[in-house]
């Protein structure tokens, strides 16, 4: 597993997203109401750049005439055919058994914890007091 410092946490405030390239892979980072998600930017169904999709919930029903929107903000809907994926696990809601988007560990760490050597600080031109977003591949 390799750890990648992506950006200062302030660059990804709640309600925003960012697609970054890490180790040649496009990865979408989402901040949904403070929860961080990192997903491979490729839909396992038909190959779309999934991270441009809409963040949504699930509509559920116990029968005709009853409709509820549940788990708001927890799903990403693919921009092509609209399959919904649970952002926390990458699991597809349309075909949960076989299809999932690759998801990655993502968290915030303080600059102080990240400065192992001079490189990190130098490469990202950052101040070490801040909090950074870190992805594990």
């Amino acid at each position, binding site marked *: 597993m390799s750890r990648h410092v992506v950006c200062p946490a302030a660059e990804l405030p709640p309600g925003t997203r960012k*697609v970054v390239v890490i180790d040649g892979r*496009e990865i979408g980072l989402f901040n949904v109401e403070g929860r961080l998600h990192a997903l491979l*930017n*490729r839909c396992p*169904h*038909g*190959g*779309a*750049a999934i*991270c*441009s*999709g*809409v963040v949504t919930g699930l509509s559920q029903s116990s029968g005709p005439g009853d409709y509820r929107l549940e788990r708001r903000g927890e799903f990403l*809907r693919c*921009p*092509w*055919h*609209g399959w919904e994926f649970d952002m926390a696990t990458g699991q597809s809601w349309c075909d949960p058994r076989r299809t999932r988007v690759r998801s990655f560990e993502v968290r915030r760490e303080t600059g102080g914890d990240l400065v192992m050597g001079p490189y990190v600080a130098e490469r990202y031109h950052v101040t070490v007091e801040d909090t950074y977003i870190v992805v594990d591949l």
Partner: protein
Amino acid sequence: MNAPFIEQKARQTLAVVDCDIHPAHRTPGELLPYLEPRWREHYQTHGVHVRQALPSALMYPRMMAAGMRADSLPENGGPAGSDLDLLRKQHLDPVNVEFGLLMALSKGGMEERNPGLAAALSRATNDWQIDRWVREEPRLRAGIVVPQEFPEAAVAEIERCAGDRRYVQIMLSSRPSDPLGHRRYWPIYEAAERAGLPIGLHPVGYNGGHPSTGSGWPTFYLQEHYVFVACMEALAASLIIEGVFERFPKLKVVLVEGGFGWAPALAWRMDKHFEKFRNEVAHLKRRPSEYLREHIWWTTQPIEEPAQSRHIVEIIDWIGWDRLFYSSDYPHWDYDNPSFAFKFPMTEEQRRKIFRDNAMALYRLA
């Protein structure tokens, strides 16, 4: 964010012919310069008057982004499908399209009720396709839009365009006023045969004034979506049983976006009853299935996906591996990417036929 994937490009090395790409107008007035002044005036004053039963009943959005891939809106404005560079970047380049066939649906003359305006819009749409798309992008080819409810004008438009090899087919809406086997449409088939061009049938957004199913209007879009199949089936039966292929033996018809999984069932059913009804349709010299297999071709998108992939293979075995063309439906939301959409095993030869060679031959692409 919309950048195509490099890995994807590498996976899909085979060149493909895409038989269903939808170009859109950047601005609502984009056709104006292509209309004669008399019709420009008319269009600006009165607008279009299409054959539609319920106002806005079939308007988008169907699913998302007004029926489009949500990532296909050009950054510099305009609707999905209106930006040639984005079409290149999202589709033509990454999936390696050798030829792409345009299906110009918006504001053509296919659904217009006013005969003069229908003819003028068809003509404008055809000139616009060449001017804005084919001239700019040599991989693209146009389809001749015709005022199909006014066959005399349709014939004139076919004759105007037919010598130009940048037009590779004649487009008809699969929502006509009458089933397409009806005699009133025969002059169009005669002109198509004379021009040596296939007919491409594609669903349009509206319904020609009819409820979209034979038993009224559906409640949900999911119901609406299957209706493409039902209307194609009715048109295929009409063309066959009313004798179009008997009268025009060189006519070729491509059913675009109507599926093909239903083809054997239709053929079996028609054949079964043909024996009993043959004196009603004495103009038919052969069994209905023979006309179907000889005169009809099919596109893939949206391809049927049975849980057991061999089931679809059996259907293709029945209709013939040389009668199916890849289509993407770009930029619509149910776009099919050739690297992902075909979840059944194919030999190299079969793959080449479906993705390229069949369409190269039928449309005489070069």
